[in-house]
């Protein structure tokens, strides 16, 4: 026994003399229990079902949460632009999100013609109100979903409070309409920094800035320059630039070259949808909008799928992936893992498939399948 103690002491004292040895020893001494440590207490979350099939998808998420017994409490608000009489006031919803800091949201339909003559849509107002400046869409191939490309994994980050969506349009002379695209250094740097910080946090290697500075030399030029300036702060992350037209072509022919992409508002909208199409459509891609204080999780490609309302055919995968991201965000990783695994198992089996993935199953059947494969 004494011998043993002496040996242990000897090893320890030797270790303290060697720098590298000390470090490994320390790390060994700290008990990491990632899987066992979990957050205590309940999380409150605002819920906006949205238009179209939104309510059906949200119901699916709620059922899965109930089955796993997730400690999340939803605070539902009906918000809609096409149905203004039923809609809750925007301030009320915004206050709730600001208070809870997290929100799960379906898609709000946006009519082509404004009834009130107002140029801003409800979506834009909500984003402005909460300053949700950054939209993140994680485009990732799902197991068992047949698509043009396999193993796509890229993140599209989009500035969504300025650019073409400034809602500043006017007719200076009859027949001549001017639409203003606003680019500011502050917001461009902010989104660029967001993209790089996202890359650092998620162990990504490369950030690609997508722009059209060859034509819009001042506007997109400023965006490009801001990205380049921020890139200097991240020496360990590769930085690339690409013109948006080339980017869309590359995306379709060789999407594997992309990692994190950062772009202004309209390009982001287009590339988001294009990338969603690559991995299986609007029903399977999750997204999130960030401000400094809060985050709204919503499907990545913004379609309400209103022609399917009540038919029970929409694919809840995107919404479920949103909820997985939500759980990860609020330190409930264990539940997130559980739901993601169940979802992957169902998709991999391929027995229960909704219409958009070539199957015949209904939304509720799919949800039940996910619940049944929970472990």
């Amino acid at each position, binding site marked *: 026994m004494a011998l043993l103690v002496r040996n242990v002491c000897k090893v*320890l004292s030797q*270790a*303290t003399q060697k*720098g590298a040895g*000390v*470090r490994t*020893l*320390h*790390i*060994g*001494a*700290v*008990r*990491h*229990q*990632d899987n066992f*440590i*979990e*957050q*205590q*207490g309940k999380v409150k979350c605002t819920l906006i079902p949205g238009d179209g099939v939104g309510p059906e998808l949200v119901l699916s998420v709620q059922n899965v949460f109930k089955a796993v017994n997730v400690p999340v409490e939803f605070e539902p608000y009906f918000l809609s632009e096409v149905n203004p009489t039923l809609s809750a006031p925007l301030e009320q919803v915004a206050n709730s999100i600001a208070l809870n*800091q*997290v929100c799960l949201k379906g898609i709000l339909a946006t009519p082509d013609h404004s009834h009130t003559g107002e140029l801003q849509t409800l979506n834009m107002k909500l984003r402005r109100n909460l300053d949700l400046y*950054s939209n993140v869409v994680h485009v990732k191939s799902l197991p068992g979903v047949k698509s043009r490309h396999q193993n796509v994994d890229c993140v599209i980050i989009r500035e969504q409070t300025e650019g073409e969506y400034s809602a500043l349009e006017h007719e200076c002379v009859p027949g001549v309409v001017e639409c203003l695209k606003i680019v500011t*250094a502050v917001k461009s*740097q*902010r989104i660029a*920094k*967001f993209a*790089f*910080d*996202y890359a*650092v*946090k998620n162990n990504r290697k490369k950030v690609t800035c997508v722009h059209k500075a060859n034509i819009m030399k*001042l506007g997109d*030029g*400023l965006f490009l*320059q*801001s990205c380049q*300036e*921020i890139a*200097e*702060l*991240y*020496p*360990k992350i590769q930085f690339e630039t690409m013109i948006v037209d080339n980017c869309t072509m590359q995306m379709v022919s060789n999407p594997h070259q992309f990692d994190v992409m950062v772009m202004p508002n309209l390009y982001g909208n287009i590339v988001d949808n294009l990338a969603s199409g690559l991995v299986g459509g609007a029903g399977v891609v999750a997204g*999130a909008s*960030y*401000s*400094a*204080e*809060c*985050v709204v999780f919503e499907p990545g490609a913004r379609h309400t799928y209103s022609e399917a309302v009540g038919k029970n055919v929409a694919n809840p995968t995107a919404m479920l992936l949103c909820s997985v991201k939500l759980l990860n*965000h*609020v*330190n409930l990783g264990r539940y997130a893992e559980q739901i993601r695994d169940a979802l992957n198992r169902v998709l991999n089996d391929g027995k229960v498939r909704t219409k958009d993935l070539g199957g015949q199953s209904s939304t509720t059947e799919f949800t039940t399948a996910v619940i049944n494969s929970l472990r």
Partner: protein
Amino acid sequence: MAAHSVLKYVRPRSIVPQLCRCTSTLSAFEIQHKTPTIKKVMPIPKAHYGGRHTVTLLPGAGIGPELMGYVKEVFRYAGVPVDFEDIDIDPNADNNDDLDYAITSIRRNGVALKGNIETRSTEAGVLSRNVALRNQLDLYVNVLHCVSYAGVKSRQKNIDIVIVRQNTEGEYAMLEHESVDGVVESMKVITRSNSERVARYAFEYAKRHGRKKVTTVHKANIMKLSDGLFLETSRAVAKDYPDIQHNDMIIDNTCMQLVSNPHQFDVVLTTNLYGSIVSNVICGLLGGAGLLSGKNYGNHYTIFEPGTRNTGTGIAGKNIANPIAMLNAAVDMLRHLGHKKHAVLLQDAINKTINKGVHTRDLGGQATSREVVDSILKYIKIAYN
């Protein structure tokens, strides 16, 4: 006019000003004589997205890495919305690449939590990394709030002193040279601008926290010009705060008074080296290096660290280091980031643990680090349920 404004638009002022210019390209002379100058910094948006902050984590040497492990564990358990970017600085490296990267990381995150970093290299070009961090980020003030814990047996009870210390110049200017063989001169630099900044911070702190008195600690009877300037500046600043009492005391007397009658002090304002001495004296009175946490503030960046800057290499890896100081630093960080709810939660759990007598060996107890952390986790759980 229009052209001018457009030009301004196209070329906004670079937000990356001489980004911690790589010190390895400078000569030894330049390193000694140019690095202590204050670096001009421009604000970069902080890494704060969706209510979560990203914070740079510099584990440092000795017990640093294991303490950081405890911080992470407690944070995850309490559901604190903070993510860490770990950066290791190799203590044996003969260049400053790791350090430069760490500084870059702090510049983009805005906030860091740090242990004590070792500098083993004796090359002239390799700066003390702790000092270099403070200088390059211009963290001109160090604040140490020394409060007694009721549950800790110590020499003096009910101490509540705030030490505000100049953090970037004075004796730590790192300007030393051997003028003739066998004669070494070390320069102590005191500037009016820096003295005024730190004095104003001390009085502003006193005003906001309802403190009554500021004591300037100096040695102006010997160093009539340098410490004289510091004292004179603090007197001038004191005139702007008529509600707060101001007096001064010589450093040797201060040490004696601290040991015999510490209750006469409220806020202590002091230069760099004296600050280091005074804070260690008070920590000793309160119960050692393992309890208190310090804060380093600049205009743009903040670094939180344990209050006394020891690495604790001797007790590393033995599961006996006191995790309280680092956890207190983490709580300070949460307050600074605005996560008040979580800060209060953790603070309560820490206080309960200490006052219930779960002490590591340095406080005269028998508990291991692990037991202290487990006790904190237990109190967090009770608070949630």
